[in-house]
């Protein structure tokens, strides 16, 4: 069951990411990122993070991607021109990205026995559900960082309003 979920939605996420890479129009890239985010929400759910699965759908594919699509439509962004780009990106960057992937895969595969397997759903131990555990941690131990994020959001709102004003 979990293997089937992982294969289906992992392949969907990977296909969406590759589509993001190969599409030339920004709106196609944005919509394929929505596919990636929805598949990742299913994977989060299968890993026992129900709260994060819901937050992924609401915050990422709901709020952030709508913002992206609004800006793409507002600026009337067309297909990107086919430029040569920077040569360093092609000669160093792409092999570098491949090398990072190979290194990470090598480490994960060589340590796969230590990493163990994961059953479907959460098992946090003492019989609490995921959202209770998250909120208990968030509102007791992590209360100060949680409050600081609200200030961060406030500053971001003010910054966005100031930056997007007409006369800058």
């Amino acid at each position, binding site marked *: 069951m979990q293997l089937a979920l992982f294969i289906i939605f992992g392949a969907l996420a990977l296909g969406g990411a590759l589509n993001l890479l190969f599409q030339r129009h*920004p709106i196609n890239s944005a919509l394929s990122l929505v596919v990636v985010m929805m598949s990742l929400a299913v994977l989060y759910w299968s890993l026992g993070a129900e709260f994060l699965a819901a937050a992924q759908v609401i915050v990422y594919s709901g709020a952030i991607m709508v913002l*992206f699509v609004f800006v793409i439509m507002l600026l009337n962004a067309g297909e990107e021109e086919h430029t040569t780009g920077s040569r360093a990106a092609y000669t160093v960057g792409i092999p570098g990205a491949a090398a990072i992937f190979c290194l990470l895969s090598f480490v994960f595969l060589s340590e796969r026995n230590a990493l163990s397997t994961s059953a479907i759903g959460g098992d946090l131990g003492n019989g609490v559900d995921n959202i209770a555990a998250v909120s208990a941690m968030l509102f007791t131990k992590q209360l100060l960082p949680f409050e600081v994020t609200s200030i961060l959001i406030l500053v971001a709102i003010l910054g966005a309003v100031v930056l997007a004003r007409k006369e800058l």
Partner: protein
Amino acid sequence: MVPTAYYLILAAMLFSIGIGAFLIKRNVITIFISIELMLNAVNLTFVAFAHMWHQVNGQIFVFFVMVVAAAEAAVGLAIIISIFRTRRTLNVDEINLMKS
């Protein structure tokens, strides 16, 4: 039962694709989208490790990453709108004020 390593390798694949898109793409909005893809890949790693250790700390971290990503998207898109207003272009090759 899926090995945790598979989730981590999927996250590594998404992250590498994000790096590739970041380097290849010439549109500033698409570059921003590939940054979001990389953040999502890292979030998957956090959730996989949180599940592996039966701890909730990794999920808290993902929550904070989401908050920071939302703030970053708002400010970044405002900067993109501001750039488009003054330069009339979204091509990063033509946005080279700080280069020369």
